[in-house]
Structures are given as C-alpha cells and as structure tokens.
C-alpha cells in the first residue's frame, strides 16, 4: 500500500510552461523539476496517491505500469530527501 504525500508546508512553487519551480523557503533553494517530475508534482499538489499518479503516467507517456510505479517511487524518495514533500495522514 502506498503512503500519501503532499508538497511540504515550507515550499512554494509555480508551474511555468509545464515546468515546476519549487522553492524551499528554509534555505531559499530553487528546484527546477524535469518534465516528468513536473507532471508528478502537479498531481501531488492535487492530493493524488502515488499509484494513481503512476497510472496517469502510463496514460501520458508510453511506459508500462511497473516502470511508471518505479519512477514515481524513485522520484518521491528524491523529493523526500530534499524535504520537499511530507507524508499525509
């Protein structure tokens, strides 16, 4: 079962031309996400769960569900490492 995540409270962000620019207010660091990362971030912002995000990736890009799930998990780990997302209850 997947844990649910949301953008962390200390982050502010904007979507510009499909690219997510996320600023961590704790250290004023600007993170520019990749195309797929921005796609995932947009869905995270809406409160979508990782498994649903993976399914939407398979719809948008030509990848298998297994591959999409792995990509989403990996990306979530990266976001967690940087403290850009927080687990939700």
């Amino acid at each position, binding site marked *: 079962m997947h844990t649910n995540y949301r953008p962390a*409270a200390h982050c*502010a962000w904007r979507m*510009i*031309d499909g690219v997510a*620019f996320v*600023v961590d*207010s704790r250290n*004023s660091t600007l993170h*520019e996400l990749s195309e797929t990362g921005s796609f995932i971030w947009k869905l995270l912002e809406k409160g979508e769960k990782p498994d649903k995000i993976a399914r939407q990736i398979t719809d948008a890009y030509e990848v298998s569900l297994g591959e999409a799930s792995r990509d989403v998990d990996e990306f979530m780990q990266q976001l967690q490492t940087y403290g850009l997302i927080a687990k939700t209850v």
Partner: protein
Amino acid sequence: MKHRGLTIRIGVVKICFDCPSHRWETLIKTHYRTFMAKNGRNAIPVTINGIFHPDTNIPDAGISATGDGWRIARSDFVSFTDKDFRHTLLGAALNRYSFNSWLRVFMTLVLAREGGMLLHSAGISHNGNTLLFGGVSGSGKSTITKILGKNTALSDELTLIYEKNGVLRGASAPFWGELKKDCGRRFDGPLKGIYFISHGQRLSAEKLTAAGAIKRILGCALFFSKDPAHVDKLLAISEKAARSVPVCSLEFSLQTTRQEILKCTQITGRRHIAPGG
C-alpha cells in the same frame, strides 16, 4: 529633547524613522535626501534605539521569525518588527554603511509582505519608463550604468520592482554598488524590460522563455525571509515579470554605446507580445 520623525519613500514603501539624536537625523537627511517624503502618513514606523550592543557572532545579515514577528540581525545591527509592521525597534552602529545594509534587508521584508522585490540590477529611466539590467556581482552593472549615463541612472546595484494597478513598475532605491552615489535620483515608472547582462565581444540580445526568465529573476532577487508565504509572493511577482515584460539576456562590450543598447531594448520591446496582448 524630542526629535521629529523623518520619512523616506522608496517606490511604494514609506518608512518613518524616530531618531534618538541629531547625528542620526543628519545621517538620514544627508544620505537619503532625494528619498525624503513630505509626510509620514501610512508610513511604517521605525524607532531607532540610541544604545546598541553588537553581537559579533552574526557575520551575515538574516531574517528570522520570532513568535510575533521578525528579527533582522548582523554583527552591527539588530531589529525587531511585529507581524503587522506597527512597530520596529532598531539598534545599529551609527554609520551610513550599517544603516544602509539594515535598510536593504528591512526593505526585502516589507516588499515580501507587499508583493514587491529588490532585484540585483542597474536601472535607468528612459522616456518615462524603467529599464533594468540585472546580474550578479561582476556581470557589468556598474559598467553598463557608466555607458548609459549616470544622469538617468536609478542604481548600479539594486532596484525595486512592484505592482500597482496591475502594472509592474521599476523604482530607484538608495542602494548603490561600485559607483557609490550618495543618494541618487528618485524615479518610479512602468517597467519596460529586464535585461540580464554579461560581458561579450559584441552587442547581442536574446529573449528568454518564461521559464528561463523566472530562473534569472529569482537568481538575482535579494531575499532573506524564510516564510513560505513571502516566498510565494516573490514567485508571484517574478512570474508576473517573466510573463508581462520582455526579459532578455544581453551581451555587451566596453565599446558598446548608449544608443546601441537603447536601440537593442527598443527592438526586443517591440517584438514582445504579452500573453493575451
């Protein structure tokens, strides 16, 4: 003896200083004379404390949240501001450099709340409008200011961007770099372009995408607050600038003339079509 308040106006921001001595009054009147306002109506009140105890453990200026407001501190100044900006108490070394450094940081805090920003940029007034030439230290802000002429210069270091009635404006600020102009000239006009400069062999300009523009703008913003709401406002005004005015990279050489640069800005300005415009 009671000293009267002195009010300065920088762009949209008015600050009224309650000075503890004539020496403080003289410092403000001398170095901010072109920014003096006639009255302190709607100004943010700041009380300067005549007694200051330096904390040498804070080498770099910073803003930290206290329970009910913000603390700005460096080894030579410290201030406390309440959340509603109804009161600020400042203790600082009595010299223009300490005071000016504090004012820069304080302005970023005020503008973060108002939705404006200080951009590392030289600026000029041209035909009633403002043109900004942004860049990090060493990119050529003072050099381009010399080329464009000091008479129309707003600053060679930091200029103010804010929004009024839906239109972005660029205003002068009393914050200078290499040229060390005492107070400069006061100007506030519609923002007609931001050019991120670099030294090159010849003059060339290239319009940036909105994504490229916001990166450059954020990279040159003077910003200290760690409040996510303030960061959100900084992103909002940066996005507005990236989308509503031409934002370009501009390469120039020491041989480039004022006329060539202005012609270049006119061409990029004409090509620019704002979304929905």
